[in-house]
């Protein structure tokens, strides 16, 4: 047996442990011991990134990476690297690195940092577990662990608003979790133990079971829709805006919302199979829910003055592009949905980093206070501009690519009404982002900022706060400009779509 065969069985588990173990150790670090905590944090993030790099390389070489542990007879915990999981795992590990740097800067003098970074790392372990999950049981295990690990982060600041936000978050996610659990077990009583398989596993189910399969899909959608913030299950998301900025970034771009959207992709493509789901009429339901969410989120975003609240409703809207892409039967739209998983992540995290910078440096929390911030903080505002324009869908930023593929795919599939949704949403996006950009760049700054904090730094703000949004903004540009180059998110999404539709022979 060559060494390759053994390391392929432990690498997926090692990726989960590479953030889990440093995370658990961080809990033990004394509060004032910043250096040791930072060391553990950075070791965890860099190790994870390194292992993910090895994994991508291994998958590229054609290796099959799978860790399988039998929990009880017939119930396997499976971690496996396939094309879709690589997309999510790469996104979360890269964004974890920048968010960790950002959080270290953001929480420099805050209290309870060991607790914070401990749960922060647990969150990433859970997200990576979700990404690599090879069957619904494993997915569910990590999905629930993610709920538990994010609760302390939302409640972190300890104010009554934070406690309330966390309680609402938990009520939604636990209820969703129960629906998901029942749905998953129900499905399993019909299918027996099955793993995720490209093009789905249910195609051969007898027609008598189809009504049950539809009911199960609705239960799963209910469970996943809570985290993916599908209207009307989105109520927790604006409430949990009370969390510190790095947590908001994590919730919106990397972990929670993405876990829900990713779950929807898994269920549509690798459990039901997109063609079978279409046959059962499930894609119509999903498409309707996604469209309503896209429009509702955008309209609500327009009405918010709080910057983070506006971004939160924007997330509600933008994440549903992923579900929208999955709801259209056709490879091009699927590419658009899947690539948006990455694109929305890097754009939204940039915006949240910037919002955090405004709040930390100037005390600016509201859109109405943002006059002239571009002059005071040009780099942050530049990054914000890139993110915002990307969200609207202006070329050459990443968001344009997603919208282009979604639109093209809708036309190809003959679903022209999707274009209307996209057009309306783009107008609304412009409606709530362009005024911010106008204020920031063209209005004169006020006499004094609400609560200015001068850092001992060469830059407009602390370096650890400035670099992360600049880096992610550059990533947004690269993902858009070099969309056609190998290993870009688009190329990878194209590869997945080909496999899901069986368009090529693959290894």
């Amino acid at each position: 047996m060559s060494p390759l065969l053994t390391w392929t069985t432990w690498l997926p588990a090692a990726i989960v442990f590479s953030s889990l173990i440093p995370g658990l150790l961080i809990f033990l670090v004394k509060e004032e011991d910043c250096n040791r905590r930072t060391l553990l944090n950075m070791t965890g993030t860099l190790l994870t990134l390194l292992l993910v790099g090895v994994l991508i390389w291994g998958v590229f070489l054609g290796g099959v990476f799978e860790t399988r542990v039998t929990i009880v007879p017939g119930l396997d915990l499976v971690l496996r690297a396939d094309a879709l999981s690589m997309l999510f795992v790469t996104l979360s590990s890269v964004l974890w690195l920048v968010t960790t740097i950002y959080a270290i800067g953001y929480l420099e003098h805050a209290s309870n940092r060991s607790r914070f970074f401990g749960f922060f790392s647990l969150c990433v372990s859970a997200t990576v577990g979700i990404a690599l999950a090879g069957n619904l049981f494993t997915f569910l295990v990590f999905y629930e662990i993610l709920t538990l690990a994010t609760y302390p982060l939302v409640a972190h600041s300890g104010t009554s608003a934070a406690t309330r936000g966390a309680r609402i978050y938990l009520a939604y996610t636990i209820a969703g979790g129960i629906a998901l659990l029942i749905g998953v077990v129900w499905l399993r009583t019909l299918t027996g133990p099955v793993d995720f398989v490209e093009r789905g596993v249910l195609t051969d189910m007898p027609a008598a079971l189809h009504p049950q399969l539809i009911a199960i899909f609705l239960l799963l959608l209910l469970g996943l829709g809570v985290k993916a913030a599908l209207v009307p299950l989105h109520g927790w998301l604006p409430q949990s805006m009370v969390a510190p900025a790095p947590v908001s970034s994590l919730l919106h771009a990397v972990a929670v919302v993405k876990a829900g959207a990713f779950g929807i992709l898994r269920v549509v493509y690798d459990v039901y199979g997109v063609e079978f789901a279409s046959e059962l009429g499930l894609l119509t339901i999903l498409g309707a829910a996604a469209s309503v969410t896209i429009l509702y989120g955008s309209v609500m975003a327009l009405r918010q003055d709080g910057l983070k609240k506006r971004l939160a409703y924007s997330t509600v809207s933008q994440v549903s592009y992923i579900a929208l892409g999955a709801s259209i039967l056709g490879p091009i739209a699927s590419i658009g949905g899947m690539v948006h998983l990455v694109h929305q992540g890097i754009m939204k995290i940039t915006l949240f980093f910037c919002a955090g910078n405004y709040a930390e440096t100037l005390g600016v929390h509201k859109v109405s206070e943002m006059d002239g911030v571009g002059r005071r903080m040009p780099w942050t505002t530049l990054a914000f501009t890139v993110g915002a324009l990307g969200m609207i869908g202006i070329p050459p930023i990443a968001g344009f690519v997603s919208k282009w593929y979604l639109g093209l795919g809708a036309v190809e599939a003959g679903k022209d009404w999707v274009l209307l949704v996209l057009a309306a949403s783009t107008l609304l996006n412009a409606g709530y982002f362009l005024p911010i950009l106008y204020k920031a760049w063209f209005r004169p700054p006020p006499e004094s900022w609400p609560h200015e904090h001068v850092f001992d730094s060469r830059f407009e703000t602390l370096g650890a706060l400035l670099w992360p949004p600049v880096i992610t903004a550059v990533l947004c540009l690269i993902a858009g400009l070099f969309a056609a180059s190998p290993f870009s998110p688009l190329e990878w999404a194209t590869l997945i779509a080909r496999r899901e539709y069986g368009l090529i022979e693959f290894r």
Partner: protein
Amino acid sequence: MTSTSLLFLPVAVPLLGALLVTAFPRTSSILGVTAALASSAGGLWVTAQTWLHGDLGSVLGGWGLPLGIGLAADGLSAALLAMSSLVGLGISVYAIGYFAGSERCTHFWPLWLLLWASLNGVFLAADLFNLYVMLELLGLSAAALGALTGSREAIAANLRYLLVGLLGSITYLLAVALLYAGYGTLDIGLLSERLQPSPLAATALVLMIAGLALKAALFPMHFWLPPAHANAPAPVSAALSALVVKTAFYLILRLWLDLFPAIADAAAAFVLGALGAGAVLWGSWRALRAQRLKLLAAYSTVAQIGYLFLFLPLIQATPAGAARDDLIAACVLMAITHGFAKAGFFLAAGLVQQKAGHDRIDELGGAAQSMPATTFSIALAGAALIGLPPSGSFVSKWVMIGGAFTTGQWWWLIVIAAGTGLAAAYIFRVLGHAFGLEPTPRCFLTNARAELPAFLLAATSGVLLGLGAGPLWSLLGLSGGHA
């Protein structure tokens, strides 16, 4: 065979320890914890022997089977024996610190070791009369332990506990007498071969189950449990809630599976399941409304016992085979997980109570936040009580939900879903107070000797029993695979 003749160790060692501790009260802590270590080792040894060699049996007193004191260990007893050994050890280590410098120490150890001996006795007894003796011994030592604080509420609650326990045992004894009159033997193995469906057997079944259900605090016969468990000292509450209540359920399960399969029918199972459903809903609701942490934990026990009874109609409706094996194993897993979780929860609650000087949930914020490891224990144990992954009860609930679908008894799903939601609400009502604005604790562990046992028990329930549940299936001799 040495392995079978040493089957009495898990009973004899704590009993001997109890005698020694009574004889030398000055050194009760050291003697007590030594005895606890030895008892734990004895219990685990028997579990290991059962794991290696399968079912064991032995007869004490030199008489043949129908007359001697028969002891037997199969997978089911071995699994519960392992639970009582590990949980008992955790409680003992914790008790040294908890009772340090208190004269209650000298009363605690003899009673606790006696309780432990009778607990193991119930798990190992092979005939119905020995079971009665062990149950009676267990009830007496449990009520005495529960009244250890000497407060008025504790004494009143435990007097009631004692009387209820006696009523339960007498009802059980009545059934034993009926069976002996009808079939002339009390050995479970022999009796199950002879038992025929008849009014006598049916009466015996009803009486036995009713007596034991009273002892197991099955809704609506749970009224005695919350005050008794909530007013005892923390290590005692842990023992009562985690271990003592389980013995009654263990017996119901054993009688159901081994003694009465010919008589127990779907209607009986449904009644027990419905009472279990009532327990889940009512217990969880009362836990949510409880003002005190230990009362919350006690009501949570009522609810968790309910889940165990929900398994009975599912097991009854499933034909022998992989699916039924899975249900039985999942039921045992749930009982064991609850044992570890509730022990960890009560021990942690005791630490919070000592720190804060009270256990009123709404005012616990500061104390909870200043002890991260203890709050973590409550969270881990809480995850197991809710049934969140990766706890053992998550795996159990998974199997249970699957069983409900396969047997078409979908109405239990509503109970499971509501119970899970309520459990999450009452656990996070406590945890929500741990994220206040109080000053940051310096480090994770503040008092290792007291915090570690609670933490290890809670972590076992919340993580290990879920991820490492597989061996339980082999220990029980069940193949399963339908989960």
